[in-house]
């Protein structure tokens, strides 16, 4: 499709950034870039749900936490004492367990990252399916509150369960070997590789989502957003399409949670907090709701600044202000301001281009 030409420039920028950091000796920036890329993975999924299917979710940090926590718990929990348990034996038979030694030299038996990853994604799929059927029947405030409620429940659960480490979260999560040579880990020697892994995953997701939007399914979603009863009259099973979009975005969120948890070596309850969900919504809004590349760009920039600590103790306040300002002055996203100025259709744009043309003509004359 025509819109896919963006991929090449983005890829070039990604490589240039890496080369630049290597050249200037600021390779440490790649750590936050990697983390931002994973957060952006969640954000582009949420963007399809909010911008294209028109369904708000204030609970996507919940799916991120489901992915991260389940993967973290499974890959750190020592099962040695439960070897005889039928479930553990089944996992062993399926080759999902790996043995090793913990720091004290005691035997350690945990679930392999790949198995944990698949189980975590399965959990996110199941939860989004069960939650989505009733929740997506709701609209407006009701949908917002219901998803917010889901987010708070997940937050309370991870905060209150001993299994998920309560307020401390889970640490000591091992690295995740995606493929030979592709090792998701925070270890400094793997930093450049991980930067490319994160971008690789993100760009593959972007490609799939772009395809989705430019297809029969994407048209149906936009139709639901544009005029739900007309979409219904065209034979679009609106409930099913909303549900499937919800599940796709939940899986991307869970995947982001899984990969980032293995990269960071741990996860804490703040990842499940409502403020995180609100932040993701803010970023999608700044990017322009129905604008995948806008969401990706804003996801990278704002998360990077936040992770570098640029907002100091005003971190949450900054996102609150962003939400208000964008929704008041540019509900179509920050890019709409710039595009508005440059677009030949807008008044200012016409004046601008008219000015350029005149100048050109004067030069030629």
């Amino acid at each position, binding site marked *: 499709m025509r819109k896919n030409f963006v991929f090449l420039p983005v890829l070039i920028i990604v490589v240039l950034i890496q080369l630049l950091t290597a050249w200037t000796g600021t390779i440490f920036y790649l750590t936050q870039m990697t983390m931002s890329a994973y957060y952006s993975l969640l954000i582009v999924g949420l963007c399809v749900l909010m911008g294209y299917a028109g369904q708000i979710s204030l609970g996507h940090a919940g799916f991120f936490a489901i992915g991260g926590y389940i993967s973290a718990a499974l890959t750190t929990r020592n099962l040695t004492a439960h070897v005889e348990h039928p479930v553990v034996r089944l996992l062993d038979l399926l080759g999902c367990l790996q043995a090793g030694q913990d720091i004290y030299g005691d035997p350690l038996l945990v679930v392999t990252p790949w198995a944990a990853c698949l189980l975590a994604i399965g959990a996110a799929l199941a939860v989004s399916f069960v939650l989505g059927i009733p929740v997506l029947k709701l609209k407006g405030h009701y949908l917002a509150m219901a998803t917010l409620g889901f987010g708070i429940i997940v937050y309370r659960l991870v905060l209150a369960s001993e299994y998920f480490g309560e307020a401390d979260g889970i640490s000591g999560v091992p690295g995740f070997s995606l493929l030979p040579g592709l090792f998701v880990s925070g270890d400094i020697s793997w930093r450049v590789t991980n930067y490319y892994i994160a971008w690789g995953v993100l760009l593959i997701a972007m490609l*799939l989502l772009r*395809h989705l939007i430019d297809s*029969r*399914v994407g*048209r149906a979603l*936009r139709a639901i957003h544009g005029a739900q*009863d007309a979409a219904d*009259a065209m*034979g679009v099973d*609106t409930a099913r399409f909303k549900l499937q979009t919800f599940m796709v975005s939940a899986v991307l969120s869970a995947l982001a949670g899984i990969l980032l948890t293995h990269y960071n070596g741990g996860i804490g309850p703040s990842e499940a907090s409502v403020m995180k969900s609100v932040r993701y919504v803010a970023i999608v809004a700044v990017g322009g709701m129905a604008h995948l590349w806008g969401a990706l760009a804003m996801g990278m920039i704002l998360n990077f600044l936040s992770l570098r600590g640029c907002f100091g103790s005003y971190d949450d306040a900054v996102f609150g202000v962003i939400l208000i300002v964008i929704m008041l002055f540019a509900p179509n996203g920050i890019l709409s301001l710039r595009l508005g100025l440059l677009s030949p259709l807008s008044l200012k744009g016409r004046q601008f281009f008219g000015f350029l043309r005149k100048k050109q003509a004067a030069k030629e004359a």
Partner: protein
Amino acid sequence: MTLLQVDQLGKRFGGLQAVDGVSFSLRQGTIKAVIGPNGAGKTTLFNLIAGMLAPTAGEIRFQGKAIQGMRPFRIAGLGIARTFQNIKMFAGMTALENVMVGRHVRSKAGFLASMFRTSGCRSEERAIRDKSMELLDFVGIADCAETLATNLAFGQQRAVELARALALEPTLLLLDEPAAGLNIYETAEIGRLIAKIRDLGITVLLVEHDMSLVMDISDEIVVLSFGQKIAEDVPTVIQQNPEVIKVYLGE
């Protein structure tokens, strides 16, 4: 052959009997109009057939199959397409994309096929595009294909809506006041278009206020008043019916 059979259909909203025991049938390949003064229950009747409302009494049979109370998207899937009185364009989509949505039930690519853009998905996409262009051409606005639908003139939006409904390849087409808001030239144009659609073999049921259009193109007319059917016949007879005249002109 009877395509649609409405039998003793009733719809009650609290204390208001909006549609009261209405029965009529629709033969394949004909144009039937439903007329009546404001508040006669025309739009309610329409929404009952299209599945936007569930009836409180009676039966609707399409090709012999009871369809009352089915969800609208299922009814569309059976081959019943509709347009809306106050046009409902899909905002943010071009005229062509609007029509392409109409191909939804005639295509099948799902989430995974779309994401991974399988070869079947690609060829289906081409077919959808070609068919939709053809339909925009049929309604006479092929040159507006890439314009945002909401930026089109009112009459053009009507045409897009018609093309969108036709994209379903419907057996039955429901038109809710197709001439509302159009001037006399545009109304005549839409009349010619509806006749052309009938000639394609598509059965048409329309609700309309514009009598000249109704008398011009309908094969048969059903007259409603206060939710009840008071007459059903060919246009020339309806024009002479004293009860119909009374309803329209008062005592």
